[in-house]
């Protein structure tokens, strides 16, 4: 890499300027001529037959264009994978919050007025609210004929029973995680419009323009190419804008029907119900370890709460079932995971995608086992940590692995030894805990392609368009890809014009921003496309300068002879020269990178599904008020193996944000429901971490230089959310000796546990 390279530099985001100026355009900022406004009426009941909808008065209201119900929607269901959802509920509402009617009017207030004039008659039906109960014979069915089973997974490796017999201690415990809402600051929304040629344009802050296109086209029943999806600036996604929300299909369909642009922006309450929140999991773990710390058996029974309609939870349950098995050198595993339909808000993708659930259980469990054999929990993890070059029990190959280094550094930075050994007394006590995590960088799970295609188009002035549809969701993807392009091409960063609004009409097919894939997949594609463009530049320059291409270099947008900087040509001059000659053309290259991985075996789930795996260890210090049960996080150190930090400013930022979301998961957040009805669907009652509620996150970057990653880089954005909740529970145990096994960890739970324990003075 050339000296002065911006790889590894803390470059500010290339999208930062418009954001701080307030000029970045988000979907709610779009205004089109003749645009109409839509609002949605949602079911107040968890399970009910829709007897009658009387919308006559609503339709008659001045300014109302459409009042749509299930009677009007296309006959076929839609969905990201399993297709069982209707654009508006037909015959039955299956969760409190399901879309039952939609109004399109000249403005939002009129649409609201019209909603209030709609009279819906429901006949309430018995509801199932717990996944285990939903699977019992005779339970009311959410979808007829399913027995409420959305997916079942069985995985076995080695011999669990033999392993348990070998163990010196065996421990069994059940853990329960909660619904966590993505709570991005920009509520989901869509603007859709049909043009004169009958093509439907959809503007939305989607994490995947091509997924949205497929979803919308299928939902309406038109060919994919009749839909054009343009990504607006995304005001936070975290998985929640990955096409499970009904917002885009509904808005697009309404625009399709009424022939005028329609805007549908979720209210916050809409969004709580529509976003596909994190799947709650009940995990019963039985694990055995030997006195020397070796984990010899892991037996897990998992119940996942799918909610009323399948989104990506059918993939998430698989992740919860087996992803973390590759964190340690496990041999004997048996897992039964069952995903159940319930009459509750559907669950789906949220940063970590099933891993945080598993990590909470596993980290709490490891600490219990460590205590039983009298071993330090950090040491237990070190003993079993997977290492570079090894292949996990599920066939995952660790081309790079900095897990042990992460563990050592996190523990060291928090002051593990001294703080664990400290004497505790008084009403307020401190403790430290640790958690570990692993995450895939990309994932060959959805289909037998896990790649990215990008294009590079040079302009006559030497500046270059980097054409990529993967999308920026705030994580810094456009910046990192620009850094890579600038480095490979030898041009200044400012000369790279990266796509800021991906468009299915002009950016190549891609999956989008999720599974921590973009740096790895699009980054490698950028390198390939840039190297091809560079070769063309050097070829034409070599002609003009009459030297061999190997004797040329490109620096700061100037191509010159190595050692003779005065013999040069600007990149712009080379571009022009490339065009204006016989059979010339503008420099325009394209490359695809598909990860060298396999899909997991459909029966055994064995196979190396990701080109790299990222690792994390987090140490948390808490202070517990034993009289009120209140927990305060005093310090948190996140050590992350990111392969290589192409942009430490961006990577650190992602870690900060993920850890705080993890603290939210552990202590501050959780949907409160009664009878399936959401009680706290607003930001006053669903409390998100504020700046004064949390400490500064300390980050340590570990660079294990992955062989597949661009310059060694792996994904970095999801791993840090994985270990946090377990580390917090472990820290509380260290502080006051009570083990909270369900999320969120509320002061009331801590106090109840302290009282039950009785021993704290």
């Amino acid at each position: 890499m050339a000296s002065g390279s911006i790889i590894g530099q803390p470059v500010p985001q290339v999208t930062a300027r418009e954001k701080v100026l307030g000029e970045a355009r988000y979907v709610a900022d779009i205004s089109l001529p003749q645009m109409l406004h839509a609002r949605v009426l949602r079911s107040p009941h968890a399970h009910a037959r829709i007897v009658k909808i009387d919308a006559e008065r609503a339709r008659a209201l001045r300014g109302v264009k459409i009042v749509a119900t299930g009677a009007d929607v296309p006959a076929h269901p839609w969905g990201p994978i399993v297709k069982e959802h209707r654009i508006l509920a037909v015959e039955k509402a299956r969760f409190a919050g399901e879309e039952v009617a939609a109004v399109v009017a000249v403005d939002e207030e009129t649409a609201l007025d019209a909603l209030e004039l709609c009279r819906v008659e429901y006949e309430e039906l018995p509801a199932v609210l717990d996944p285990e109960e939903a699977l019992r014979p005779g339970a009311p069915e959410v979808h007829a004929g399913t027995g409420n089973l959305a997916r079942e997974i069985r995985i076995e490796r080695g011999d669990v029973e033999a392993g348990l017999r070998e163990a010196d201690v065996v421990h069994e415990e059940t853990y329960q995680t909660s619904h966590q809402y993505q709570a991005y600051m920009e509520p989901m929304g869509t603007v859709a419009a049909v043009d004169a040629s009958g093509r439907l344009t959809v503007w939305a802050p989607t994490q995947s323009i091509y997924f949205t296109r497929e979803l919308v086209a299928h939902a309406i029943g038109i060919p994919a190419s009749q839909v054009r999806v343009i990504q607006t600036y995304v005001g936070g996604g975290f998985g929640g804008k990955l096409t499970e929300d009904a917002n885009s299909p509904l808005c697009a369909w309404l625009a399709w029907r009424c022939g005028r642009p329609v805007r549908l922006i979720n209210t916050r309450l809409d969004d709580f119900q529509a976003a596909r929140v994190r799947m709650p999991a009940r995990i019963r773990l039985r694990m055995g370890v030997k006195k020397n710390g070796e984990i010899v058996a892991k037996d897990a029974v998992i119940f996942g709460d799918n909610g009323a309609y399948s989104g990506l939870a059918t993939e998430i349950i698989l992740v919860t079932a087996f992803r973390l098995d590759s964190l340690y050198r496990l041999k004997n595993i048996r897992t039964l995971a069952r995903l159940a339909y319930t009459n509750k808000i559907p669950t789906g993708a949220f940063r970590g995608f099933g891993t945080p659930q598993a990590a909470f259980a596993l980290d709490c469990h490891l600490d219990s086992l460590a205590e039983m054999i009298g071993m330090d929990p950090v040491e237990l993890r070190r003993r079993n940590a997977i290492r570079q070059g090894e292949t996990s029990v599920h066939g995952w190959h660790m081309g790079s692995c900095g897990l042990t280094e992460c563990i050592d550094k996190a523990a060291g930075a928090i002051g593990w030894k001294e703080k664990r050994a400290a004497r505790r007394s008084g009403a307020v006590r401190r403790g430290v805990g640790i958690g570990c995590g692993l995450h895939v960088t990309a994932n060959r799970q959805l289909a037998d392609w896990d790649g990215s295609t990008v294009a590079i188009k040079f302009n006559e002035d030497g500046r270059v368009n980097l054409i990529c549809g993967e999308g920026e969701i705030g994580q810094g993807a456009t910046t990192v890809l620009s850094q890579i392009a600038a480095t490979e091409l030898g041009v200044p960063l400012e000369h790279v014009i990266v796509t800021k609004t991906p468009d299915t009409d002009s950016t190549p097919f891609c999956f989008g921003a999720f599974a921590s894939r973009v740096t790895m997949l699009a980054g490698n594609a950028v390198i390939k496309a840039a190297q091809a463009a560079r070769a063309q530049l050097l070829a034409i320059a070599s002609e003009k300068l009459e030297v061999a291409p190997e004797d040329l270099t490109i620096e700061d947008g100037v191509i010159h002879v190595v050692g003779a900087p005065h013999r040069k040509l600007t990149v712009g001059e080379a571009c022009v020269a490339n065009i204006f000659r016989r059979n010339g053309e503008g420099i325009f290259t394209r490359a695809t990178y598909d990860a060298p991985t396999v899909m997991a075996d459909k029966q055994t789930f064995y196979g190396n599904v990701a080109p790299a795996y990222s690792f994390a260890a987090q140490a948390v210090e808490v202070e517990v008020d034993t009289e009120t049960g209140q927990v305060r996080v005093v310090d948190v150190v996140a050590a992350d193996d990111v392969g290589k930090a192409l942009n430490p400013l961006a990577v650190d930022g992602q870690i900060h944000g993920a850890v705080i979301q993890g603290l939210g998961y552990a202590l501050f957040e959780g949907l409160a429901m009664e009878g399936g009805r959401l009680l706290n669907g607003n930001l006053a009652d669903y409390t998100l971490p504020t700046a004064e509620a949390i400490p500064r996150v300390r980050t340590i970057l570990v660079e294990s230089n992955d062989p597949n990653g661009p310059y060694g880089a792996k994904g970095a954005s999801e791993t840090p959310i994985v270990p946090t909740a377990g580390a917090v529970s472990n820290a509380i145990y260290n502080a006051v000796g009570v083990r909270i096994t369900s999320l969120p960890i509320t002061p009331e739970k801590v106090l109840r546990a302290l009282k039950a324990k009785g021993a704290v003075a």
Partner: protein
Amino acid sequence: MRNFEFLEPRTVPEASRMLADHGETARPLAGGTALLLLMRQRIASPSHLVYLDGVPGLNSIHVDDRNGARIGALTRHSEIEAHPGLRAKYPVIAEMARRVANPQIRNMATIGGNLCYGDPASDPPACFLALGGEVKAVRGSQERVIRLEEFFTDYYETALAPDEILTEVRIPPLPKGSVGVYTRFTTTQAEHRPLVGVGVLLTLEGRDSCREIRVALGAATPIPVRLGKVEEFLRGKRLSAEVLAQASEIAATEIRPPSDFRGSAEYRKDVVRVLVRRAVERALAWAAH
């Protein structure tokens, strides 16, 4: 929200008359942070809003040794927090105002609006109740003074008549040598609204005996209340650890808090126990200083 007529009185009696003229469907508007939220959610849809912020003379603060503190109803929490006279003579009020909600709300919301809204999960009521606060209200051209013990009647309900306007909050001069403390509990640091708030005004006899004490509880019950049994128990006693422990037990038995998703009744009682004890401890520590 639904539409309404926006009325702009120039005096308090005029405002009161406007409310009388339009009856139950008219509401006064001060800062608007509570009312506009209700209106946006269509929980309240008044036909007329009587805008008080344009009426002069309602946002001044006077502090002197004879009258105590008089805070105009339209004063913002941030103005209360910053007022030099309050900081000097009633530091507990300035400190309480500093922690109400969040900075933007403190710049917009008024003390009058806060008291009239009657939201239990709020700080000023219990704090003022402990300090012997009262309010002045105007109806037509009639004025009256209402003690805070009588002002709050139920969740979101006060003793004000529909056409009555709160104009001033008054805190009497504090007894010589007394110490005021307000302490609040939120379930997490991310919460803005208290689950429990306790205000204490303690006058010592000697080093650690209680000559006089007022204890007010907020947020845990539908309306803020004086914990009369706790006060009675503590009066005249030496404030030892055992006495404080007994007092906090009495506090827990004196009240009937609700159970909801923010906390069970039992948990609220647990927190009340702890907070009453800690508030008195803090007051004792300061007073002994």
